[in-house]
C-alpha cells in the first residue's frame, strides 16, 4: 500500500493539497502581516505542521515526523521563548527609514514570485517515478535514509555534528554575561536604603479597590498618576495603564447622578453659581 501511495497521486491527495495548501499560504501571509511577534510565531507553527503533512504525503515519512519534532516542537518554541525574553509587546515600528521601501519590497517580492513560477512552468518536469522502489530497495524510508547518511553522505553528517557543537558553544558565549563589579553585600544595601531618598517602601500601585493591577499607576491626591508606584521593568517597557482619566470621569458621572436625583438642590446650586458668575462679571 505504501509503495502505491508513494508512486501515484490520488484524488484524496489532490483534495488534501488544495485544502492544506490554502492553509499553508494563509499561515505564511499571516506570519508577515501580523503586528505582534507572538501571532507571527503561531501562524508560522501552523504552516510548518501543514508542511509536515505534505512531507508525509510525498512519501518522506522520516522527514515528516522530524519536521514536527524539530521545527514545531523545538525551533518554534525557542522563538516563543525569545519573544517572551525580548518583550511580547515590542511591536514593529511603523516609521519608515527609507521612503516607500515597503511598497518597493512588496513589488520586488511579487516580481520574484512571478519569475519563479514562470521558471517552474517552463521547466520540463515530466518524469514522475514515485518513491515506491527507492523506499522498498532498503526495506523502508528510514532504512533507506540511514543507508545513504552513513555511506554516501557520512562526511557531511560528521560535519553537521561539528556544526551543532559549534552552534551550542557560540550561543553560550553570546548570551553569557560576565559580572564586571562585585555584588553588593546586605550591609551596603541597607546603608544605601537609609541614605537614599525612599526610606519607607515605595507606594503601592492601583487605584482604590477597582483597578489594583500592578501595571496601573496609583493616583496622587490631585488625581495625577504617580510613576513611582509601578515596577521599574514595566516602566521601562512603557506598559503603564493610566486610569486617572477614567476615575475622574466616573467621579464626575457620580456627581451628576446625585445632582439629578436631588434635582431641586442642584437647581439651587446652579442658580447660586449663576449668581456668582454674574457678580464676577
Amino acid at each position: 500500500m505504501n509503495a502505491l501511495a508513494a508512486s501515484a497521486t490520488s484524488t484524496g491527495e489532490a483534495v488534501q493539497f488544495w485544502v492544506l495548501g490554502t492553509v499553508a499560504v494563509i499561515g505564511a501571509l499571516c506570519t508577515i502581516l501580523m503586528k505582534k511577534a507572538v501571532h507571527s510565531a503561531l501562524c508560522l507553527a501552523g504552516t510548518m505542521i501543514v508542511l509536515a503533512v505534505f512531507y508525509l504525503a510525498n512519501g518522506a515519512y522520516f522527514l515528516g515526523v522530524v519536521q514536527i519534532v524539530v521545527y514545531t516542537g523545538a525551533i518554534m518554541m525557542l522563538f516563543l521563548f525569545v519573544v517572551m525574553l525580548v518583550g511580547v509587546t515590542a511591536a514593529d515600528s511603523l516609521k519608515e527609514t527609507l521612503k516607500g521601501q515597503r511598497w518597493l519590497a512588496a513589488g520586488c517580492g511579487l516580481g520574484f514570485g512571478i519569475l519563479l513560477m514562470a521558471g517552474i512552468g517552463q521547466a520540463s518536469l515530466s518524469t514522475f517515478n514515485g518513491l515506491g522502489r527507492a523506499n522498498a530497495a532498503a526495506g523502508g524510508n528510514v532504512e533507506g535514509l540511514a543507508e545513504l547518511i552513513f555511506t554516501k553522505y557520512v562526511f557531511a553528517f560528521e560535519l553537521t555534528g561539528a556544526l551543532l557543537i559549534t552552534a551550542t558553544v557560540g550561543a553560550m558565549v553570546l548570551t553569557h554575561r560576565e559580572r564586571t563589579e562585585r555584588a553588593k553585600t546586605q550591609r551596603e544595601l541597607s546603608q544605601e536604603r537609609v541614605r537614599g531618598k525612599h526610606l519607607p517602601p515605595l507606594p503601592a500601585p492601583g487605584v482604590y479597590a477597582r483597578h489594583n493591577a500592578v501595571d496601573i499607576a496609583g493616583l496622587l491626591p490631585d488625581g495625577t498618576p504617580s510613576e513611582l508606584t509601578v515596577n521599574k521593568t514595566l516602566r521601562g517597557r512603557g506598559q503603564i495603564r493610566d486610569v486617572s482619566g477614567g476615575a475622574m470621569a466616573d467621579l464626575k458621572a457620580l456627581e451628576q447622578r446625585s445632582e439629578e436625583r436631588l434635582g431641586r438642590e442642584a437647581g439651587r446650586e446652579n442658580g447660586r453659581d449663576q449668581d456668582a458668575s454674574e457678580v464676577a462679571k
Partner: protein
Amino acid sequence: MNPVNYLYLAALLFTIGAAGVLIRRNAIVVFMCVELMLNACNLAFVAFSRMHGNLDGQIIAFFTMVVAAAEVVVGLAIIVSLFRSRHSASVDDASLMKL
C-alpha cells in the same frame, strides 16, 4: 493532480518569506521569514525526491533542517544580546557601524 503543484506551493511560500524579510522591521519576525524560506526549499527538495524516485533529495532536506536548527540557536542568541545592549529588537536601530 500533477506533483509539480508542490513546487508551485514551495515557490509561493519562498516568495512570501522573501517579501517578509524585506518588509518587516522586527528582527525576530525577519528571522521567522528566513525559516519559512528554508521550509519552502525543503518542500521543493522532497517533491523533487519523489518525482525522480531517489532519496538524495530527502537527505539534503534533512541536512537543511540540521543547519537551520544550528542557525536558529546562534541567530536568536545574537538577537537576545542585541536586545540587551540596545533595548530594541528592531533592525533599524542596529546601526552602530554607520558613519
